[in-house]
């Protein structure tokens, strides 16, 4: 117990004794963790961005001329049962006249003397699914309803955006993997340099009769502390970044997207740091004591 207390204190003191090395390592590790944290947060918020894109999906369904408002209600109920459809709103013949007037400034009844506009529906797609929604099968199914005259859909561009966005998001884990690898190297090299710069201490300890574990432990604690400080700094940084992005979204865009920061992301990062620092420090110290 005495030994453990002494070695822990030594590990803490070592961070202070070698402030510059520790500072550089903390900053480097902080940057690596911050990027991984941002990627993880972005990945975690993917569905919100997708929701925004999906809110732009709008399928307009025009029924045949002879479909009455009452019959259209039944057809809309059928459309609502299609998987991936969130809502379907009827636009009755009378509403269509009003919309026409709003858009063109003319009353079609005055021009033609009758209402040629059919009953239609606006179909919105489900937003909550984390998987990309395949729009084609939905359109195909709506078209298969024989009382439907025409289906208009302008989601091709959004579909492309969604596909590319997905493509980027899918690459995040690989990118995070590379950054984590860099973080391991940072810790490994920091501890290795630290061990090398204190080879005289190690030699003295060996001569005195210290075991390898006694020599290694302060280095492991030192590496662990560097990781701990870095991950502690990452938490407010990620939180601040998410708040900053939300501020920009709220005040400078009309997207209506609000990102959230899930503390689980930080817990993962913290666990990652624990593993990285323990393995990195142990291996670095061991490599010198072979």
């Amino acid at each position, binding site marked *: 117990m*005495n030994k453990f207390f002494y070695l822990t204190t030594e590990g803490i003191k070592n961070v202070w*004794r070698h402030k510059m090395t520790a500072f550089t390592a903390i900053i480097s590790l902080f940057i690596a963790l911050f990027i991984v944290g941002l990627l993880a947060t972005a990945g975690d918020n993917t569905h919100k961005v997708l929701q925004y894109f999906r809110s732009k999906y709008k399928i307009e369904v025009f029924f045949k001329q002879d479909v009455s408002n009452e019959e259209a209600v039944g057809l809309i109920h059928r459309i609502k049962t299609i998987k991936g459809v969130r809502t379907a709103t009827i636009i009755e013949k009378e509403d269509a006249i009003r919309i026409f007037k709003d858009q063109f400034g003319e009353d079609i009844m005055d021009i033609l003397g009758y209402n040629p506009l059919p009953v239609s529906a606006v179909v919105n797609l489900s937003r909550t699914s984390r998987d990309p929604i395949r729009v084609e099968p939905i359109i195909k199914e709506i078209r298969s309803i024989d009382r439907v005259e025409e289906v208009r859909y302008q989601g091709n561009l959004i579909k492309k955006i969604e596909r590319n966005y997905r493509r980027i998001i899918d690459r995040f884990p690989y990118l995070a993997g590379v950054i984590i690898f860099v973080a391991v190297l940072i810790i490994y090299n920091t501890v290795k340099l630290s061990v090398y710069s204190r080879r*005289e201490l190690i030699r*003295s*300890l060996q*001569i*005195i*009769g*210290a075991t390898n574990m006694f020599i290694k432990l302060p280095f492991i604690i030192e590496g662990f502390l560097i990781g701990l400080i870095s991950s502690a700094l990452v938490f407010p940084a990620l939180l601040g970044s998410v708040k900053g992005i939300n501020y920009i979204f709220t005040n400078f865009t009309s997207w209506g997207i609000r990102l959230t920061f899930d503390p689980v992301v930080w817990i993962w990062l913290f666990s990652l740091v624990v593993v990285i620092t323990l393995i990195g420090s142990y291996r670095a110290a061991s490599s010198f004591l072979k």
Partner: protein
Amino acid sequence: MIEFQNVTYAHQKGNGVNNLSLTIEEGEFSFLIGPTGSGKTTLMRLIYFDLLPDAGWVKVNGFSSKKMTKRKIPKVRKFIGMVFQDYKLLYDRNLFENVALPLHVLGYSGREIPDRVEEALELVGLEGKDYHLPNELSGGEQQRACLARAIIKEPDILLADEPTGNLDPVASFELVRLLETIHETGTTILMASHNYNLIKGRGRPIYELKDGILRGR
């Protein structure tokens, strides 16, 4: 206590010791003399198992080089104190921390350590210098600090490898006298030196090494 039986050790660049047999009894204070490169340091390193013989065997306090493993080495070194010509003090730690280091290795509690450090520093005449950094001390004082670090764990064996090599004659003489004081407590001491004038006439066994061969006693 220390036994060498037909020990040979060769460094890659030559030197070392050749077919050396030697016995140092418990409680003995002996000197090892010889010119630079004669094998004095090699012999010392063989005693604390920093080197293992190419041939023959070394036995220290019942531990034999034949059965020596990496795990056992720290155990042997716990009862060996060492003093070096270049002191091997830690220059980023004060005297107190330097001297206390072996006690931490042995697992002494924080309450016991200050008294023992004070005692050791007093014995070597460095009382009141606890918080000085090594480079604030003279060569003689640094060597005495090194000695305090070596004796604080009350070792059975004290090895001093050219401890006076960097000291002036007065400091050298004082250090040998200090070693004699420590020896009175029953510690086995082996001191290597190339300064015959310093060790002659003390009535202690003197082992002479030349080109790695023990020439006589």
